[in-house]
């Protein structure tokens, strides 16, 4: 383009000056764009590193040492034997006293195949871990590892193992990392989250309705609002201490289930943990729900009032359905925060070693993050591997919840339009 003559009278650049100015403004945009791309990449790299570390630890070579070679017990691999065959091996190789004790705790007929296999490995084979290697090590330095194992523990066999497996999900906690699983912790987390939602969703939604629809704009309500906003930022350990004081101690008769006729437990129950988690996520739920309610268009409310609807009818038929996708999404996101919280659970007294499934709100319990915390603090390498596997389980749970949130939002907002 030919530049028109410069017009010195105007403050605006013209001609060549205008073109230079445009180039300069464009360049600024380009620089910022690469900065934004950089920020995105940093985030992606962090995420990739996290996933890589966890996957790297969840699979890999393990050198297993035996007191008794499994090959001497059966001509087939132990994993392929039926439960009855395993019971026979067990009976033949441990003292009859020990067998009777086991039989008395849980009769063999009621035990699962995996359970009996665990017993055989623990009591008969006396399996132990001579060393574990990460996935990358296992793939890249296999021959070096084989040489090292041959030199240090000649009796050991080297096997590739996926620490995350079906059995890992369905077996309870054990002090032997080879047969330990997350079943108890998984159930504990599910129970806790279920009860948390049961309380937090209606209370949070109710509070949001009150604050948005009914509360007048006066000093008292403004103070409440400010406090809710601030509570969302309080560190979770503080909620743990509150939960300990209020739910575990003060309300012990309720949280231990004594007033409901449950005997023999203290206040350190799933219910206490759930109520503590409820306190922790209520502010988040309330704030999200308020935002969702505020986003319901005024025109919709006007239409409803204009037909002679009362305030509650308008809320019930238009405001809540319109806000529901946002409320549900907010709740699920808050809940996925609660699933990963560890500190408050430690404070309210989750158990670290527990093998029986929780059977209701008044059970003692453990939860996935507690289990992970517990395993990562063990010295033996194999506990690092099962911790990584448990983290994978936790991540899958979180991803599932978040996908449900997205699904609900899409489904409901499609119905709304």
């Amino acid at each position, binding site marked *: 383009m030919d530049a028109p003559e410069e017009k010195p009278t105007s403050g605006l650049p013209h001609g060549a000056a205008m073109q230079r100015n445009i180039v300069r403004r464009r360049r600024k945009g380009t620089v910022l764009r690469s900065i934004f791309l950089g920020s995105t990449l940093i985030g992606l790299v962090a995420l990739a590193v996290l996933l890589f570390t966890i996957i790297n630890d969840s699979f890999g070579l393990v050198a297993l040492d035996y007191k008794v070679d499994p090959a001497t017990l059966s001509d087939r691999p132990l994993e392929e034997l039926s439960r009855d065959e395993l019971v026979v091996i067990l009976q033949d190789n441990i003292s009859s006293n020990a067998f009777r004790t086991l039989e008395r705790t849980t009769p063999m007929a009621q035990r699962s195949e995996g359970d009996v296999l665990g017993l055989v490995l623990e009591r008969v084979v006396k399996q132990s871990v001579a060393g574990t290697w990460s996935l990358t090590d296992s793939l890249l330095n296999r021959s070096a590892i084989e040489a090292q194992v041959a030199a240090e523990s000649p009796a050991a066999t080297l096997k590739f193992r996926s620490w995350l497996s079906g059995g890992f999900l369905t077996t309870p906690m054990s002090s032997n990392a080879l047969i330990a699983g997350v079943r108890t912790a998984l159930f504990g987390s599910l129970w806790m989250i279920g009860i948390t939602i049961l309380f937090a969703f209606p209370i949070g939604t109710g509070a949001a309705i009150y604050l948005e629809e009914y509360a007048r704009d006066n000093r008292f309500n403004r103070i409440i609002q400010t406090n809710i906003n601030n509570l969302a930022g309080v560190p979770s350990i503080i909620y743990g201490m509150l939960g300990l004081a209020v739910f575990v101690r003060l309300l012990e008769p309720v949280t231990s289930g004594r007033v409901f006729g449950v005997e023999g437990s203290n206040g350190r129950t799933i219910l206490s943990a759930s109520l503590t988690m409820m306190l922790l996520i209520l502010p988040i739920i309330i704030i999200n729900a308020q935002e969702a309610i505020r986003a319901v268009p005024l025109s919709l409310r006007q239409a409803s009032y204009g*037909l*002679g609807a009362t305030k509650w009818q308008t809320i019930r038929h238009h405001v809540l359905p319109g806000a529901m996708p946002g409320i549900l999404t907010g709740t699920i996101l808050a809940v996925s925060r609660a699933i990963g919280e560890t500190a408050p659970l430690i404070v309210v007294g989750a158990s670290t070693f527990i093998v029986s499934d929780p059977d209701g709100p008044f059970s003692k319990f453990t939860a996935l993050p507690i289990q992970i915390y517990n395993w990562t603090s063990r010295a033996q390498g194999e506990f690092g591997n099962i911790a990584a596997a448990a983290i994978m389980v936790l991540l899958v749970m979180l991803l599932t919840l978040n996908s449900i949130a997205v699904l609900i939002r899409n489904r409901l907002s499609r119905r709304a339009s």
Partner: protein
Amino acid sequence: MTTQDRYTLNARNMSVFYGSFKAINSVNLDIERNKITALIGPSGCGKSTVLRSFNRMNDLVPSARVEGEVIFHNQNLYAPHVDAVEVRRRIGMVFQKPNPFPKSIYDNIAFGPRISGWKGSKTEMDDLVEHSLRNAALWDDVKDKLKASGLALSGGQQQRLCIARALAVEPEVILMDEPCSALDPISTLKIEELMMELKQRYTIVIVTHNMQQAARASDYTAFFLMNAERAGEIVEYGPTGDLFTNPKDKRTEDYITGRFG
């Protein structure tokens, strides 16, 4: 013949405030039964405010306050014991932007009766829905897709759905706030024809920015302007024919001939 036989609504020295701001200054307006009354005037002079004061929709604005009286069936709508919910059922409203509920066409119509304590059967409700849609000249367009979302209709159809929805609760008055300003000319004409039909059974008050519309469709016209304190006042009010052909006030003449605001 008493005033309230001839008139449906009488505003008496009605002033409306938003907080300390006086938006309407002492308006007197008699709305004749089974006629269409148009409120015209430049933006911001308070036409919507007057309209909302006629069915207490202004109650929804926390800062709004009405002084003076609006008489409906010999009763001041702003008397302490009057229930705004009842007022709004008897004096319906259609808004500037079509605002169907995000529900089916059927449920859009059925919502008003249901929340107002409808006791009839399913077939009676079907009849009511059909009747309301016919009265809003929408039945032929939608009779095969009553289960479809109200939002799937065109703008003009949506506005007629909103009118049908208002009719379903059997109001006596229908207030319309610039009901055609978001519509194309064809849809606008359809709504105007519809208003002519409806005035045989209802009293209609319409706010419009469109001079031709007021001239074509209304029986009475009230012209509003802001006074020196920016409060809306009625400059001139009378039969539409007189006001448009023979305005008494110079400012009215300037406005309707387009020499103003």
